[in-house]
């Protein structure tokens, strides 16, 4: 199925003329600890100013009280910032900044569903705040790249140092950049897409 507008003439005409064909949407998650620059990154590449909403997510119970077979679930509310990049009239990419703290692990299950992959942002002064996100994406087989946000170009760690400290698989791309700048954020997304296209990313498991 073509997604570029330039492919239009090849596509035949599966949609009746009086219907406006809605584009399909895909998403990429931008994860990382509080204050690491998720919304900054979304804002630097989005074609709209970052939007904010609240999603109510299901928290699965721990199973202790499940003897009667009734699922023990509660919900909680999580704030999301997101932006949009229109790929073509047929495809729109949404970028969701997601809370990276460990206490939100449950929500990632909902959020990774239908995601192309993820960008994990890290702050070299607080690397540990990104451990939970990395662990989660690794365990779920969600392809991801790591971005080291260098405000004002301050690079106090090298890429090998960060890779080492995070104990990353050698295939996981790590980039450094000032994510307030569009090219740095764009390159991080491109690294993810290239990572996916190279097929080195493990395929996520079916839910």
């Amino acid at each position, binding site marked *: *199925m073509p*997604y570029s507008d330039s492919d239009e003439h090849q596509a035949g005409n599966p949609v009746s003329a*009086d219907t406006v064909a*809605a584009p*399909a949407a*895909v998403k990429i998650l931008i994860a990382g600890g509080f204050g690491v620059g998720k919304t900054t990154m979304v804002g630097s590449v989005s074609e709209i100013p970052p939007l904010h909403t609240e999603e109510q997510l299901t928290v699965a119970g721990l199973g202790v009280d499940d003897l009667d077979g009734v699922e023990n679930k509660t919900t909680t509310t999580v704030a999301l910032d997101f932006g949009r*990049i229109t790929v073509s009239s047929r495809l729109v990419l949404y970028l969701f900044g997601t809370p990276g703290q460990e206490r939100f692990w449950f929500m990632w299950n909902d959020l990774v569903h239908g995601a192309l992959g993820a960008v994990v942002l890290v702050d070299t002064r607080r690397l540990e705040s990104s451990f939970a996100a990395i662990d989660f994406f690794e365990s779920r087989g969600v392809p991801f790249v790591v971005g080291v946000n260098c405000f004002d170009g301050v690079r106090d760690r090298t890429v090998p140092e960060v890779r080492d400290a995070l104990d990353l698989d050698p295939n996981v791309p790590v980039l450094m950049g000032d994510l307030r700048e569009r090219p740095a954020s764009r390159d991080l997304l491109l690294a993810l*897409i290239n990572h*996916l296209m190279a097929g080195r990313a493990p*395929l996520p498991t079916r839910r």
Partner: protein
Amino acid sequence: MSHWADAAADDEDAEESLVRAYTITQGRTASARDDLTLITVITTAAAPRDQHADRGLQPEHRLILRQCRTPVALAEVAARLNLPVAVTKILVDDLIVRGRVTARPPLAVTVGEEPDMILLQAVKDALLRL
């Protein structure tokens, strides 16, 4: 019976409260369907011939209809209406049931399949244009 919309417009606290959100949904806290996602694309359908077809719609329903004349993801509808996603899902569901909007589910890009190279290339081209 007084309608919530009759409340004083300058009552900011009332605007922010959950009571108002769940008044809009007439007490419902969950959508009847669970297939609406943050990136389900909502599009307003052609206007019904029957002028009375939209009777009973809340102002928020009408705002959604106006907003989705250009297809837009559910998360964006929620953000622009300043309503929680859960409430927005209920309202969108109402409009789907009435045939006033259509919903396009997200592409199944990650569900145990080979990466879709055509899709990835299209995304890559778009990023290179930024």
